């Protein structure tokens, strides 16, 4: 009896396999019905094959993991790691608990993950990189690859952490991440504040003449506050996005039309 138990132990090698299948496959089968469900099952496969040897068990396990799943890819490793730990200990005897923990964790983790790994990550890495590229630096285009590979390491650590903590991960880690999110938000917002004057280009060519005195509107605006027009357009966009039924696609169309109209009215150029 004990022999069988030892045989079914999940090794570090298995976890590494799960990590790679997760990073490579989680979103390959993304679909509107179960979203990352197919990919989640794909990532769990080495563990399922080891734990469930009969056809009935395997069928039950496959069906369990093909269920709806969706979270930030980087955060999914914590959940999968915890799931592996739970199934290694209890198997499928408590199917509902596994399902409940998966679905219970994916929502809050997506909230944190989308802020840290998507919004803040992008605002930092790609604003700096694009700014460099605009100045003609090839390094600007290649720099994003470095933090991207650092994220692999984070995702690997998440897999191991999830496995060690098991179901406790849901409570303990969320608190620590809250602090990290706060710090990252401050960093992100500081950079975003600097972004509008650096990358939004809006020059006012209007010139007034009264007798001998010429009067450039742009110069006047600059004495009130530099980058006033770019900031105004950012705030307008921000306000529009908060309106019901307005989304980023509509905003692109709106800004395109605004650009054409303001150019032809000779307000911007």
């Amino acid at each position, binding site marked *: 009896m004990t022999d069988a138990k030892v045989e079914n132990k999940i090794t570090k090698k298995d976890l590494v396999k799960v990590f790679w299948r997760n*990073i490579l496959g989680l*979103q*390959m*089968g*993304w*679909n509107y*019905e179960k979203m990352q469900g*197919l990919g989640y099952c*794909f990532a769990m*496969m080495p563990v399922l*094959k080891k734990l469930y040897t009969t*056809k009935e068990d395997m069928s039950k396990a*496959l069906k369990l993991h093909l269920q709806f799943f*969706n979270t930030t890819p980087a955060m999914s490793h914590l959940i999968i790691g915890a799931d592996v730990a739970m199934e290694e200990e209890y198997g499928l005897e408590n199917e509902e608990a596994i399902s409940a923990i998966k679905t219970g964790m994916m929502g809050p983790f997506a909230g944190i993950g*989308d*802020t840290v790994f998507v*919004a803040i990550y*992008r605002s930092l890495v*790609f604003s700096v990189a*694009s*700014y460099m*590229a*605009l100045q*003609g*630096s*090839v390094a600007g*285009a290649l720099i*994003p690859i470095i933090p991207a590979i650092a994220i692999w390491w984070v995702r690997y650590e998440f897999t191991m952490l999830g496995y060690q903590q098991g179901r406790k991960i849901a409570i303990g880690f969320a*608190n620590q991440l809250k*602090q990290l999110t706060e*710090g990252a*938000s*401050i*960093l*992100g*917002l*500081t*950079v*975003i*504040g*600097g*972004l509008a*004057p*650096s990358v*939004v280009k809006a020059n006012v060519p209007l010139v007034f003449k009264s007798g001998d005195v010429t009067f450039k509107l742009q110069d006047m605006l600059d004495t009130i506050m*530099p*980058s006033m027009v770019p900031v105004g357009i*950012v705030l*307008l*966009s921000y306000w529009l996005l908060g309106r019901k039924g307005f989304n*980023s696609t509509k905003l*692109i169309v709106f*800004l395109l039309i*605004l*650009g*054409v109209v303001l*150019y*032809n009215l000779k307000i*911007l*150029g």
Partner: protein
Amino acid sequence: MHIAFWQILLLTAYAFVAQLDALSLQISLGTPLLSGFFTGLVLGNVPMGLTVGATLQLMVLGVATYGGATVPDFMSAAIIGTSFAIISGQDVEFALGIALPIGLLLTQLDILARMANVYFQHKADRYAEDGDADGVSQMNLMGIIPWGISRGLPVFLGLYFGNEVVSAITKYLPQWLMGGLKVAGGILPAMGIAILMRYLPIKKFYPFLIIGFVLAAYLKVSLIGIALVGFAIAAAYLYFKNDLKPGAEGGDIDD
């Protein structure tokens, strides 16, 4: 310049692989910045690729697939826009004018790919019924095909018919529109910024937004400099927050 067939194939392959990268390893191949740069490299005009890619990248800073939402495909659009501008010897504004509508149009293909994968999900459900683990795995990998085609196909078709399309555009596109698109290209990065502002806790942390603005607009600090200041403030904030908390010595996590 005339685009060679091997260049079309290379850029098509890039678009195919870049989309898979965006779904998995995420080393950034699937961003407009890198796809624009790569196109410039293949077609021999790196500065053009860098500028088009970076401008589109700034626009989509905040546009990401949160929770699987479909967004415009500016990765493929950067390839097509950059290529068209280089083929016709036009400038960056021309490339952006092409890339923007194409990116919006390609949204539909992203939706199609996500719909096509429902078929593989259903097949996987049937394999699961039989306990066929390898069958399920294969169905997940089949998703590679719709995903890759959704990016590779438009790039191939766009570039294959590129010469005809470009000459038609340059013939009929009026100056009032080209000039307008140039202005639009300048203000569009405002969108990326606005979306990020919507996504971050701006009500709580708005003072830091102002600090960043003052550093850039008044003191002309570069973005890397601003990022360093932001990092220092964030670290100090967390330090003082933990230090001032009553009973911090106990170190219990009860907040």
